[in-house]
């Protein structure tokens, strides 16, 4: 249980190290990010949506991971985002497009597409692992609460039963 908590904390920090600089980079160099997205081989309409939704989703993922209550949502959102990015790079590596411009942030701008793919795959696996570990911790804490409540209910029931017996006597 303690080991699981340590792993969840480590994965949380790793994901924060990914999402915070990535979203900050997009916001600080917004014009460069916008140009990079619009150069990608999909429609400009989708690009316009992604320009605003991507940084927002990354910030939401980071905030959810920081908050203990919504960490599960944060891991889920991270997994979905990383799955989308990894899938996109995977399709690009398969040669779906002749040339794919990189709209990468400052953190990973030095990587080529293959390195970028493995980098994303590592974070995708970490997010999924974190999600399952966090879900297990949630379930354990929930079942723990039920056990405590059950114990107190039993005690309460015993007390009532004893009181009734005493009353009859």
């Amino acid at each position: 249980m303690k080991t699981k908590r340590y792993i969840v904390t480590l994965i949380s920090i790793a994901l924060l190290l990914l999402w915070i600089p990535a979203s900050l980079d997009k916001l600080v160099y917004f014009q460069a990010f916008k140009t990079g997205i619009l150069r990608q081989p999909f429609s400009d309409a989708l690009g316009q949506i992604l320009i605003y939704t991507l940084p927002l989703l990354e910030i939401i993922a980071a905030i959810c991971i920081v908050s203990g209550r919504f960490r599960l949502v944060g891991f889920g959102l991270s997994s979905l985002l990383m799955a989308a990015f990894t899938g996109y790079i995977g399709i690009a590596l398969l040669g779906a497009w002749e040339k794919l411009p990189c709209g990468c942030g400052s953190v990973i701008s030095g990587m080529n597409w293959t390195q970028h793919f493995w980098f994303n795959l590592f974070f995708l696996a970490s997010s999924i692992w974190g999600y399952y570990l966090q879900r297990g911790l949630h379930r354990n804490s929930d079942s723990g609460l039920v056990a405590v409540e059950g114990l107190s209910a039993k005690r309460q029931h015993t007390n009532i039963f004893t009181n009734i017996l005493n009353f009859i006597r």
Partner: protein
Amino acid sequence: MKKFIIKNAMALVALAIATGSYTLMSFKPALETQEFGREIPNPSQPDQFNWVPLEGLEEGVDYDCNASDEICKEAFESHQIDPLTNAPYPNETPVSSTPGSFDM
């Protein structure tokens, strides 16, 4: 204080990451100074430009350009070359060849 740090450890880590990454970003050269992989000269560096104004060149006044003038010659030549391909522009046919004539 210690209790506060332990309770908000993850938020403090996030804050530290945000501050660190923002500081690192400020060292990154601005993208606006780069265009197609070439460094645009910085006007604040006096070595890169000769800011000596031309004699007789004032705002709102047409400069009397003579063919023998060195600057006019350079300007004329630079206008004849496509800056992207470094090839001369194809010859354009004049709109009106005869002075005073009116072409439709």
